[in-house]
């Protein structure tokens, strides 16, 4: 239970809000790199700011104010050039720093004029890594964009994007809530499949440990012991807005009532045949079943979305009743509230990496998983995977299996 004031403190992320200032200290993924291959300009709303993300013809990224300072036209309808983004209304051109480079008619009439040099729009740093486009909206110098070791793992990778109509914080609380797996995913899925017999193994103990980049949460269920990797290693609540279980699920605030759920997945491939993807595919995962008007409930993350959305657009934490299963949630709230004070005092919050020597294939605790030995696995996390994405994975799996030892049976 929280006071309304505390709840707002944790949920509101617009510029100038304490949590907004905290989250602006981190890099956030906002799109798949593949998206910016298909279209050169994309509207992006993040942390309550409307922006235009672009990739110019030189391959450089920019993230600038969505509105041209000339007459406020929408720059996401502009077009890219060798250097920068040009407004489609009167042709003003801006580079990735926000500097205006060209004002066609002004310069025709006043070739010696210097007006363009005085015009600069809001612009933020952008980087591409692991098939994702990352942006940084905070004060300089920016921390380093984390270089997680999992990005280098051999396997088929894909990125998904969904817009979830609720506040980011209830999404992230889910990242440190072990017991929900038993009910939301295991037991409910059994019911949805028409299985009304045995329930999933019940949770017996929970543990939470802080480490450099977040917290691990650990569990013992009725079918596991203290020797199990889910207890010795656990899963990762990655600071400040991600879940890591071998794949990553970021919860990026669009604004206070919408969250960009952007995820990075990897499927291990059999054998050891070298495998590299030219482009990591990115696809938009639907959240609603258009036939019924209900939220999709067939896949793991879709089930999470139902829980988050069901809590309300912004969960009213004055009305909740916390218990033992919520220790992780309380831990996260406390740590974030501490971080708010750190930022207010001018210090770095938890988990930033500023030392380049530390930022090389940084390890995150991982409960290992193995490549399927019997065929390509169906994608269980989100509904709506395009056939061509699955086909690309299946093709990679079969190619690797064919070159692998004989115990693999390519029957997929």
């Amino acid at each position: 239970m929280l006071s309304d004031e505390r709840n707002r403190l944790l949920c509101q992320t617009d510029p100038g809000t304490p949590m907004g200032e905290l989250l602006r200290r981190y890099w956030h993924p906002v799109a798949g790199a593949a998206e910016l291959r298909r279209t050169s300009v994309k509207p992006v709303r993040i942390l309550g700011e409307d922006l235009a993300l672009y990739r110019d013809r030189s391959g450089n990224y920019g993230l600038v104010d969505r509105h041209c300072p000339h007459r406020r036209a929408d720059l996401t309808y502009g077009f890219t050039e060798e250097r920068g983004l040009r407004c489609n209304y009167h042709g003003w051109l801006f580079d990735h720093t926000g500097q205006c480079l060209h004002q066609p008619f002004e310069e025709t009439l006043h070739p010696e004029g210097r007006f363009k040099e005085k015009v600069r729009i809001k612009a933020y740093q952008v980087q591409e890594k692991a098939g994702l486009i990352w942006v940084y909206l905070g004060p300089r110098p920016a921390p380093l964009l984390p270089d997680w070791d999992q990005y280098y793992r051999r396997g088929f990778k894909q990125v998904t994007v969904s817009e979830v109509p609720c506040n980011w914080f209830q999404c992230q609380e889910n990242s440190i809530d072990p017991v929900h797996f038993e009910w939301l995913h295991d037991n409910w899925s059994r019911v949805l499949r028409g299985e009304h017999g045995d329930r999933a193994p019940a949770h017996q103990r929970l543990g939470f440990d802080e480490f450099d980049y977040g917290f691990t949460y650990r569990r013992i269920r009725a079918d596991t012991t203290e020797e199990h990797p889910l207890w010795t290693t656990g899963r990762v609540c990655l600071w400040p807005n991600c879940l890591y279980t071998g794949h990553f699920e970021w919860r990026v605030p669009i604004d206070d009532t919408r969250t960009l759920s952007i995820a990075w997945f990897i499927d291990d491939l059999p054998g050891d045949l070298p495998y590299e993807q030219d482009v990591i595919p990115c696809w938009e995962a639907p959240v609603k079943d258009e036939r019924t008007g209900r939220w999709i409930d067939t896949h793991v993350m879709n089930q999470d979305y139902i829980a988050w959305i069901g809590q309300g657009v912004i969960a009213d934490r004055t009305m909740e009743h916390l218990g033992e299963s919520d220790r992780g949630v309380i831990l996260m709230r406390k740590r974030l509230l501490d971080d708010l004070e750190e930022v207010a005092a001018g210090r770095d919050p938890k988990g930033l990496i500023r030392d380049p020597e530390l930022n090389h294939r940084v390890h995150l605790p991982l409960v290992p998983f193995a490549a399927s030995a019997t065929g390509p696995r169906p994608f269980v996390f989100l509904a709506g995977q395009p056939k061509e994405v699955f086909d690309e994975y299946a093709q990679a799996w079969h190619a690797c299996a064919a070159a692998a030892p004989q115990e693999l049976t390519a029957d997929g």
Partner: protein
Amino acid sequence: MADATTGRVRSAAEAAEARAYGLTRADLVEWVQFSPIEIYWARKHHLTPAVARHWAAKGLRVGDAVRAIALGMTPEEVAPWAGAGFAPFDAVEAKETGVPLETAIAWLQAGFILPDAALLIRDGWTLEEAVVARYAGIAAEDHGPFPVPGCMADSAETESRPLVMELRVSARHQVRHRWSR
């Protein structure tokens, strides 16, 4: 992976984690009862195996032991908390947040686990306020006893309802007051 010296069996998953943290077989023998991430964390915070084991004997993992030491605690401070029914790591949380054992017991008896209580106390709630707020949402949905098929609610239940209503109004008022601070 079984260690020849200790007989401790580490799973393939633990072995992979150990490699990721750059731990050697000798490290794993020296830190036999600890997981790779605990060993990494202990070393980062200059905790020796002997000290870590001493805290572990009191029920604290390395992460909580590191916090406890930073707070100037001794392992012996854990026992009263464990004896009162709290998890051992609650002793560290209480020390960090300044919640005395008697206060924690009172809040626990009212339904608030220690970290929840500590956060509420930090935000200025009294136990009385918190109890009212905690049950206000539930009491507000109290429309009286469900009728049992074949039975009518007895007069005692009917007479108790005005009191429930009064409590409900009071609780709502206090919660609203609390939010408006």
